[in-house]
């Protein structure tokens, strides 16, 4: 196998293939980034809705709960298929990439909603009490008091999730989205040695993911000490 890999390497790493792989890399990155940004905002919203109190807001609160608990328990592939077929049924002809993006956003928002909820919960109840006694409303308290304290607890796991998510996007290859794994399948079908193809794809994912992992570890180390500050 190794001999064949070495033999094919020059042809494999030719100009067009490299462009192709680069586009695929971009596709993977975009899918993860957009998913996490949109998912992040939506997830934040979901977490805020879940923490409301009062009977009037019960329907949205329940809906948020069900959404989060459901999408965290459905495999990426199944969510992808559902999204794909729903768009198909509705007759909406948008590019495959955007279907994958919707799918990705749904999943990311559910997971990030949990992360944000954990972060908000980490702020002591007495902060809420003091704000309530001063007549600060729910949203104002979140904005001025809670979120400024919670983001340090939210960011590291959210970033970890982003890194994890990059790997999950590999499944988007199944509906033909132009990302790294799909590129691998294409090149493999073209006849290149599977070891070379998938080895390179693995390496590319690694090159994308590992530096971010290190960055995340550094960030966690920097934010953690401040979390331990007890007055």
């Amino acid at each position, binding site marked *: 196998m190794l001999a064949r890999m070495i033999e094919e390497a020059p042809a494999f790493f030719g100009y067009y293939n490299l462009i192709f792989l680069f586009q695929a890399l971009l596709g993977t990155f975009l899918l993860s980034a957009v998913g996490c940004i949109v998912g992040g905002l939506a997830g934040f919203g979901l977490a805020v809705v879940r923490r409301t109190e009062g009977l009037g807001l019960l329907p949205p609160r329940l809906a948020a709960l069900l959404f989060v608990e459901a999408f965290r328990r*459905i*495999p990426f592939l199944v969510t992808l298929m559902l999204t794909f077929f729903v768009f198909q*049924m509705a007759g909406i002809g948008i590019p495959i990439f955007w279907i994958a993006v919707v799918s990705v956003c749904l999943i990311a928002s559910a997971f990030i909603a949990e992360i944000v909820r954990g972060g908000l919960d980490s702020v002591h109840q007495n902060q809420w009490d003091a704000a309530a006694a001063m007549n600060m409303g729910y949203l104002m308290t979140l904005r001025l008091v809670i979120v400024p304290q919670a983001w340090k607890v939210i960011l590291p796991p959210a970033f970890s999730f982003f890194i994890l998510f990059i790997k999950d996007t590999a499944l988007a290859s199944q509906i033909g989205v132009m990302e790294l794994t799909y590129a691998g399948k294409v090149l*493999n079908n073209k006849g290149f040695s599977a070891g070379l*193809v998938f080895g390179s794809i693995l390496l590319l994912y690694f090159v994308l993911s590992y530096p971010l992992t290190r960055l995340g570890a550094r960030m966690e180390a920097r934010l953690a000490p401040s979390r331990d500050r007890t007055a």
Partner: protein
Amino acid sequence: MSYTLQFGQVWPYLPYLAGGALVSLWLAFLAFMGGMVIGLLGAMGKTFGPPWLRSLIQGYVVFLTNTPQLVQIYFLYFALPDTGILLSSYQAVLVGMTLNAGAYLTEIQRAGFLSVRREELEAAETLGMSRLQSVRYVILPHIMRILFPPLSNQYILMTLGSSMAAIFGVEELTGRAFNVNAQTFRSIEVFSVTAGLYILLTLIASTLLALVGRQLFRARMRIV
């Protein structure tokens, strides 16, 4: 474009799909067990081994946790044949999931090892316990308590991760969903039911694991 949901066509396949759920659980279980063995060896190697072994294990862990499981399986399935090792779909998926799990479980178990504080060992010693006794009565229970939640979580994740076996034709839950879809063309219904089954599956599994964790290991676990 009008499309009426016809779940009626899908219900007959429910037993078939439910069977697939069991396959998913079993697949994840086998991979988990294999991964635990790798993880134990890896954790011990990283904690007590010589520098070269530590680097090797670190390399394994880092590489497998920073690349997608799907591509790892693709590699095993398509690339290994070139070296003469022919794996069936099921085997490739199982090996892939096991190796992948091994990397994560190495880290989880290593964290468990590190959590045993010297004070506990010293306390056990001063109470007159032999090495073996301190392991049995102090270290092991402590480690099990600490490790049970993340290990349970990993298992649940792996059950969800087994879904990608469908891509290789393995007939676990998602794989069977593809089959039913091919037969009935009621795609939305099929995959909604499948999604529902996964939710049910993971809810039951996490509840059971949480109960076991609380009762047997006094681990602090959230029910669901």
